[in-house]
């Protein structure tokens, strides 16, 4: 088999269309994971042991099973379960599956951020008579979240690289397009190379950006000292 530049340049626009689907799916999954991550955190903070354990165990279960299995379950198995079964289109199933899987990671990140806020901050907030909601909104989260931004950014990149899993349940994004093209013309190398290039082109600068963020947020409070 020989490398063909013609094929290479022909598939670029085709796969570029898929890039938007991949990006859209990444963002949708990520948004789901970011929001739902808080759900796990709050469930595990309910001061009632059984609920607490149930959700901790559930999160642990989801975290330690492969996302591919979860995707298959949601897309193929769930609709056939009586009463609670729901048939989702591939895109929705992918968002739910990958979003849910990654929410168990973001929740750990949030948890570490929240635990890094000193106990004295809660106490000062109580002494000033803030309500529970006000404590979270004004005192805890503004201190807990910024240091986790680099970690959250890392998960965004990892998520981006996991999204091709969705092609297995029929989401027509970059990988799927490349595969179809290959099957049709018996040319796999060029389209798959293009897919890899697109991933590299997006992942690498993002990784650099995150390293920058890391520096910025690690020095967040020191920097203010430096301006004195």
């Amino acid at each position, binding site marked *: 088999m020989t490398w063909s530049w013609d094929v290479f340049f022909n598939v670029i626009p085709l796969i570029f269309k898929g890039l938007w689907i991949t990006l859209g799916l990444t963002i949708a999954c990520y948004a789901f994971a970011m929001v739902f991550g808080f759900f796990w955190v709050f469930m595990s903070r309910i001061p009632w042991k059984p609920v607490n354990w149930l959700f901790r165990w559930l999160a642990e279960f989801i975290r330690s099973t492969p996302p591919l299995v979860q995707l298959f379950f949601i897309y193929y198995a769930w609709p056939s379960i009586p009463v609670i079964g729901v048939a989702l289109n591939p895109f929705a199933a992918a968002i739910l599956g990958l979003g849910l899987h990654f929410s168990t990671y973001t929740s750990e990140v949030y948890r570490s951020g929240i635990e890094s806020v*000193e106990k*004295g*901050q809660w*106490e*000062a907030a*109580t*002494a*000033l*008579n*803030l*309500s*529970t909601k*006000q404590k979270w909104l*004004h*005192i805890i989260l*503004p*201190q807990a979240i910024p240091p986790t931004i680099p970690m959250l950014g890392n998960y965004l990149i990892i998520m981006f690289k996991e999204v091709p899993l969705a092609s297995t349940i029929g989401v027509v994004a970059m990988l799927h397009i490349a595969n179809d093209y290959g099957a049709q013309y018996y040319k796999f190398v060029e389209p798959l190379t293009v897919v890899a290039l697109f991933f590299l082109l997006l992942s690498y600068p993002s990784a650099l950006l995150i390293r920058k963020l890391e520096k910025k947020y690690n020095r967040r*409070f*020191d920097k*203010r*000292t430096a301006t*004195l």
Partner: protein
Amino acid sequence: MVAPIVQYKNVRKAFGDVEVLRGINLDITPGEKVALIGPSGSGKTTIIRLLMTLEEPSSGVIEVNGENLWQMKKGNKTFPADEKHLRAIRGDIGMVFQHFNLFPHMTILENCMLAPTIVKKKEKATVRATALEMLDKVGLADKVDLYPSQLSGGQKQRVAMARALMMKPKVMLFDEVTSALDPELVGEVLEVIRDLAKSGEMAMILVTHEMDFALDIADRVLFLNEGVIEEEGHPEEILVNPKSERLQEFLSRFTSSR
């Protein structure tokens, strides 16, 4: 006889199996300045944390203005206090911590403005004016836009006091507020408390190891030992003519610094 603003009635507190407070009875009248002294681990911090609702007593009753802090009445039934009940009473109490506990993500001014703005829902411009006045009073008028990390310990503690004063508490709690400070910064913080004590109708409970200071500003001194108030009375009585042997022994450790 004025009604007490704070009452502890046979208050006990245990952490696990360890009983830290063993039956505290204490009345504080409005405006009274009470110094709480005693060896480390005797339960001084726990006493004031109970009033600030940072800990819950194991048994006994704490009342503020005659209202039971940890129980509420509905009709003629009583229930454990909920957040609303606690918040209603807590408004009268303020606290300054040993380690300041300023909010590091906010400027000095924002630290002072937060609670009056969001808890009391006062107008921002008014709160700002009061905060600037308050910060001026504690000698930090030129620091209002800095962040806590840019201040010295003594300055941080003065901000913490201004922040607590912004809520106009009727009782202010001080937990060894100078013991985390470098020796040369202690004076500036004591000075602020002294002014407050002399000018204010605010009641104060001060946990302190500064005996001269206690002698100077307190109306009453309590000596706490192993979870009980072992001796109490007028500062002269307690600090100059201690009766119990344990108090004498305790005070003798401070003679070098007096």
